[in-house]
């Protein structure tokens, strides 16, 4: 059997495992009761949710991300790289290597994500608090995603075969349901609950500043 075809089959199977895993966690979460906020609104829960998922994610909106903007930016770039890598996997199924402009654009995004991933791992290893906070999966998950970015970059640059790229991707996908990568499932819930809580209570939304203006 052709190696590329075999890797495609493996990619298909691992994608099915990953999607099934994500669906399982999603179903487990949805099976839990939701304690609804039944008090009359002061602000707007809806505006709070929209805020939390958009403007509220901007680095200047939080003291923590203003202060630790390098770490935040590193995290953002890592995630942008990962999403770019996923797009590369999908497009490669129909588009092969793709045109040069596409390879350069996505290669740049993936390369930056790769650097961010390596730096993130170094920070986790070198920071005492982060090391103490971390379990083994906190190293394995970002290491695997970083390896995926390396494979994607290698593929875009023509240094890695499609089969090798798919093999690395498959390993990441197979591990995904068991790892902290599944925070992608919970992220939207968490930010929505955040927005619902603070929006409903009139604490946050589009009408509020960041508390640093010293209004009055």
């Amino acid at each position, binding site marked *: 059997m052709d190696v590329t075809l075999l890797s495609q089959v493996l990619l298909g199977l691992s994608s099915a495992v990953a999607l099934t895993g994500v669906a399982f966690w999603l179903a487990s979460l949805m099976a839990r009761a939701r304690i609804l906020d039944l008090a009359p609104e002061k602000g707007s829960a809806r505006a709070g949710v929209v805020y939390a998922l958009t403007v509220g994610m901007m680095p200047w909106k939080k003291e923590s991300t203003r202060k630790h903007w390098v770490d935040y930016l590193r995290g953002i770039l890592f995630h942008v790289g990962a999403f770019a890598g996923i797009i590369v996997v999908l497009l490669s199924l129909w588009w092969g290597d793709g045109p040069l402009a596409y390879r350069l654009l996505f290669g740049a995004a993936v390369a930056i994500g790769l650097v961010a991933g390596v730096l993130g791992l170094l920070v986790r290893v070198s920071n005492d608090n982060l090391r103490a906070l971390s*379990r083994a999966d906190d190293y394995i998950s970002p290491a695997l995603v970083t390896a995926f970015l390396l494979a994607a970059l290698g593929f875009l640059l023509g240094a890695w075969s499609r089969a090798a790229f798919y093999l690395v991707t498959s390993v990441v996908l197979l591990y995904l349901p068991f790892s902290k990568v599944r925070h992608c499932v919970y992220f939207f819930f968490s930010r929505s609950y955040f927005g619902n809580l603070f929006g409903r209570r009139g604490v946050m939304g589009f009408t509020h500043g960041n508390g640093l203006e010293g209004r009055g």
Partner: protein
Amino acid sequence: MDNTKDTEAAVLALKKSLNRDLATALDVCVRCGICSDTCHYYSADPRLGHVPAYRAELLRRLYRSISNPLARRFPRLFGATPVTPESLDALAETAFTSCTLCRRCMVNCPMGVDTALIMRAARSVSTASGRAPEMLVQLADAAISREENLELFRDLMLEQVSELEKGLREAVADPRASIPVDKQGADILYVGLSGAHTIVPPAVLFHTVRANWTLSLFEASNYGVFLGDSARAKRIAERILHEAQRLGVKEVVVGECGHAYSTLRWEAPKWFGGPLPFRVRSIIELMAEWVSSGAIKLDPDANPEPITYHDSCNLARNGGLLEEPRVVLRAAARDFREMRPNRENAYCCGGGSGLVALPEKMELRLKAGAPKSHQVRETGAAVVVASCDNCRIQLGDLSEHYGLGVEVKGMAEVVVRALVPSRSPALV
């Protein structure tokens, strides 16, 4: 409680707490550590035990051990700790003394992890396994028994109220002024705290605006909330619900108390399955309304010293009272100064969530109050207004401990001082 029984009770409490919000908060954290220095504990004493993600991780490890077979099989890989007397001891110590449930870390978390929700569940687990501080348990149970033995308390309370009425009459120069109790058909049921300072200044204001009000037989505090014990918390809130329904009031007004306000305003409807059959407001909201509508006239020159305002976490970040206190203080004080950061980003004073009720934790809370002390000092204010009794106690202790030289006052006290009798209808 023996070891097996208390671990079983802990597991049961944890499973019972596991709603969708809590499961999300437990599973979404990626341990990036960016929350660290948003916490007042960590700012004052930067160590691992004060990192919000670390504190939450204590419960997360137990959660994984009961809900994730893979984590149970590979505890080092996925971070799981079995529920044992030792792990419960560590959880209880952290839940009750290293987190005031202020939600400052949540506001600053890119994921929006509700660490306060997690720590409240940790308190619930600790209480169920008999590890809650005895003082908090006693205070909660005393509040419940007050309703059960109301006849015993009523006469004593009426006697105390008649003493307070003397102060009211003197303040408003009206011998007919009264503090009504158990008044059927009143519009407002005012729920204060123990202590004249939470009853007389609001009584002066109610008298001034000629409100149809009555004083509650109960205190607003709810120590069941501090225990993370929904059953006790509901029972304590229920006393006020019953009283309000019996008197047929339109509105319950909570005195200057952070957790009592956020509990009755935001949490209680969850326990009773729907909105309460009356409006719930803080006395701060009423004061802001009276100032805005001109129902009371204030002379800011009556409070000439620099005044700053401490945003209680339960009133501001958790309660939504961000602008109302400022409306009042701008009208009541000549030199109102903001702390920075403020409003939803304000630092917790370090005394919240029942900590001021634990004398053995005084040193800890004074240390945790260092960032707030720094904020207060930077304003150069002579007076700090705190609309929460726990915050008032803590800020007074911080002033003494850090030599801040500030006086701590309640908002109603500052407002009453600024009242202009000739322009406030009932004082004429």
